[in-house]
């Protein structure tokens, strides 16, 4: 036991400094390690730290022998804290005489491991963007790139982007600037941005596949369109200034960016658009581009400047279109499921469905043609099922006579106008039903949703409240708009979609097949991609099973037939208050050898 000469506190044998007042207990030898408690009254289980003097000749190997004088602008060590301890330096990425770059963590926020959001506070219990529970997980702070300089001019352009608040998913984004004075008299300027991760375009072997290049091109052109719309041009579109992270391309290095004081004319932005086109073309060099892609480059780099793309937006639009064409499968087959069920409340099934297909495989090339129809009949005295059956028969007859038979007889030379054909078939169906209703003095009628699918092109129409959906792993989207009272009320904002499901007048429709001598026919065109589904159904399904649930069933069932059976089962489980009819079509790409 040693009693401290200054404060009289008790200290353990061998202690060199007093635990209570910190005064030296005995003159320490410069070579012997001495200890100092930083926390004199430690709480149980809390860490205790000690400083152990290092003898002069025995420094840690990474400590330079001479520390003084220190240079005015040297990189800070890992652990350094800036901006009121908000940012902690994780590592030094780069250092130079005028500019240092660090990886830092932002201690004011936490990173969501599920969705990647960096917007949650460390004490939040759930991710504000995806709802993930953070319970029991230590906060992981988001990491950023932090650049540091004494000379404002060096980061002036990037600071401008930060000041304008310009951020886009096609850019390595700059978030903010701040000033701090870690030590010494001169303040340093700091710039926080996304980490400059990913592969550079320069490292890629060439040529790259068209689909990839178009995807990157579209993202970059959209980023440029965004910058240009804010009167900023990049001026440095080069392979080394593009970063690829996963399948995303991001634009970086804004150090030549500029913004004129007034709105600039379109021509002022042309150099960015041309530089991007040239860069994309170089990635494809060495292969013959598809005609659509070749046309884009011919236009982007036309000898006469007037013929070129006027804006980055126009280039982005063409790249998007070309990508859609490219992603459309060339050689497809349809896998179909269908099911029509009376439901639990009705005695009769007034719904009708039709599937009509021709699929010829010639020289291993397949471009099937299919007509798929769901019709939901209505009218008393068994008139409903007559109307729906007449409608599908009329549609089938027209499409068979005007499209399918001529195809087999090779009479059709030019590509027919499928939309017009479908319109004609619907008018034919309307005429037939209307004629019968008039003669029988009946109020019979039917709804109808029809899809004429030719390869990967789908032409869709609807009359009434039967629907077509396009479904894939990412989304479910109604292609058609119901001609119903509640749909109007939703469209005009008078009721919510949720209220529409239980609205007392949810069955009121204002457009049907057979009601009037003429019927208005809207045609929707969809270019289907591989692994897209089309779902046609009567309100007996979509009135009882929510869209998200339909999507889940369709995308998880192995076969469309299984999906149809399951959907009908669910609608019955939910009450089955109407007839339930559903057709599901899956587009499957077939290899030229597989057939």
């Amino acid at each position, binding site marked *: 036991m040693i009693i401290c000469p200054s404060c009289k506190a008790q200290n353990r044998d061998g202690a060199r400094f007093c635990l209570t007042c910190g005064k*030296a207990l005995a003159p320490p030898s410069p070579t012997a390690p001495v200890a100092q408690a930083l926390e004199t009254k430690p709480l149980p289980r809390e860490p205790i*730290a000690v*400083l152990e003097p290092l003898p002069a000749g025995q420094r*840690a190997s990474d*400590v330079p022998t001479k*520390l003084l004088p220190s240079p005015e602008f040297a990189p800070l*060590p890992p*652990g350094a*804290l800036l901006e009121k301890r908000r940012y902690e330096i994780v590592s030094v990425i780069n250092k130079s005489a005028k500019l240092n770059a660090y990886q830092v963590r932002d201690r004011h926020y936490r990173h969501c491991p599920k969705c990647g959001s960096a917007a949650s506070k460390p004490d939040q219990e759930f991710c504000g963007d995806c709802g993930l529970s953070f319970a029991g997980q230590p906060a992981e702070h988001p990491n950023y790139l932090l650049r540091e300089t004494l000379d404002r001019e060096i980061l002036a352009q990037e600071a401008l982007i930060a000041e304008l608040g310009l951020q886009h998913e096609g850019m390595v984004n700059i978030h903010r600037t701040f000033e701090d004075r*870690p030590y010494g008299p001169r303040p340093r300027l700091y710039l926080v941005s996304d980490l400059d991760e990913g592969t550079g375009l320069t490292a890629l072997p060439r040529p790259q596949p068209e689909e990839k290049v178009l995807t990157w091109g579209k993202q970059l052109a959209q980023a440029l369109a965004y910058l240009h719309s804010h009167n900023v041009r990049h001026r440095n579109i080069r392979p080394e200034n593009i970063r690829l992270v996963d399948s995303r391309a991001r634009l970086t290095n804004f150090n030549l960016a500029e913004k004129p004081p007034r709105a600039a004319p379109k021509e002022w932005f042309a150099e960015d658009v041309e530089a991007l086109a040239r860069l994309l073309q170089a990635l494809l060099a060495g292969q013959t581009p598809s005609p659509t892609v070749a046309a884009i480059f011919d236009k982007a780099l036309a000898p006469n400047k007037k013929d070129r793309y006027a804006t980055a937006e126009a280039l982005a639009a063409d790249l998007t279109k070309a990508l859609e064409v490219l992603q459309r499968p060339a050689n497809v087959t349809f896998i179909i499921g269908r099911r029509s069920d009376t439901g639990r409340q009705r005695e009769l099934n007034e719904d009708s469905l039709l599937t009509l297909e021709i699929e010829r495989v010639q020289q291993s090339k397949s471009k099937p043609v299919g007509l798929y129809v769901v019709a939901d009949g209505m009218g008393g005295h068994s008139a409903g099922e007559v109307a729906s059956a007449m409608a599908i028969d009329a549609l089938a007859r027209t499409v068979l006579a005007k499209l399918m038979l001529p195809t087999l007889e090779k009479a059709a030379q030019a590509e027919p106008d499928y939309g017009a054909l479908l319109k004609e078939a619907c008018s034919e169906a309307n005429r037939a039903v209307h004629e019968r209703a008039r003669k029988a003095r009946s109020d019979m009628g039917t709804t109808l949703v029809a899809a004429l699918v030719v390869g990967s092109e789908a032409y869709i129409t609807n009359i009434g409240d039967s629907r077509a959906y396009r479904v894939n792993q990412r989304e479910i989207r109604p292609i058609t708009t119901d001609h119903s009272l509640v749909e109007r009320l939703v469209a005009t904002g008078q009721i919510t979609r949720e209220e529409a499901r239980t609205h007392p007048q949810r069955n009121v429709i204002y457009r049907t097949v057979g009601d009037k001598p003429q019927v208005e026919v809207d045609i929707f065109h969809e270019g289907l991609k591989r692994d897209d589904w089309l779902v046609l159904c009567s309100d007996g399904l979509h009135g009882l099973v929510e869209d998200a649930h339909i999507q889940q069933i369709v995308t998880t069932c192995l076969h469309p037939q299984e999906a149809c059976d399951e959907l009908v089962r669910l609608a019955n489980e939910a009450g089955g208050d109407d007839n339930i009819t559903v057709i599901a079509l899956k587009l499957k790409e077939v290899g030229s050898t597989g057939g």
Partner: protein
Amino acid sequence: MTYIGRADDGSNDVVIDEHFVGWSTVSRTHALIERDGELFVVVDLDSENGVYVNGQRTGENVLYDGCTVSFGQVHFLFQMNQEGDVR
């Protein structure tokens, strides 16, 4: 908060006196070390010759177990001990 410096007038918790090699490079009140949540942080109090962590000059810095922290030319090894024992 633990104040570190050369002045032996009661203002410092750790007095770096003539027993330390290089003690003349330490300012009267040179730096402080404090707890910030789970972390220990060293803060340079505008000293003449600076605070260094692993040989690099810094202003405010998290001290991790095993790092070398220097006040001017006086070097210390920083150690954390989970058992709560003072060595």
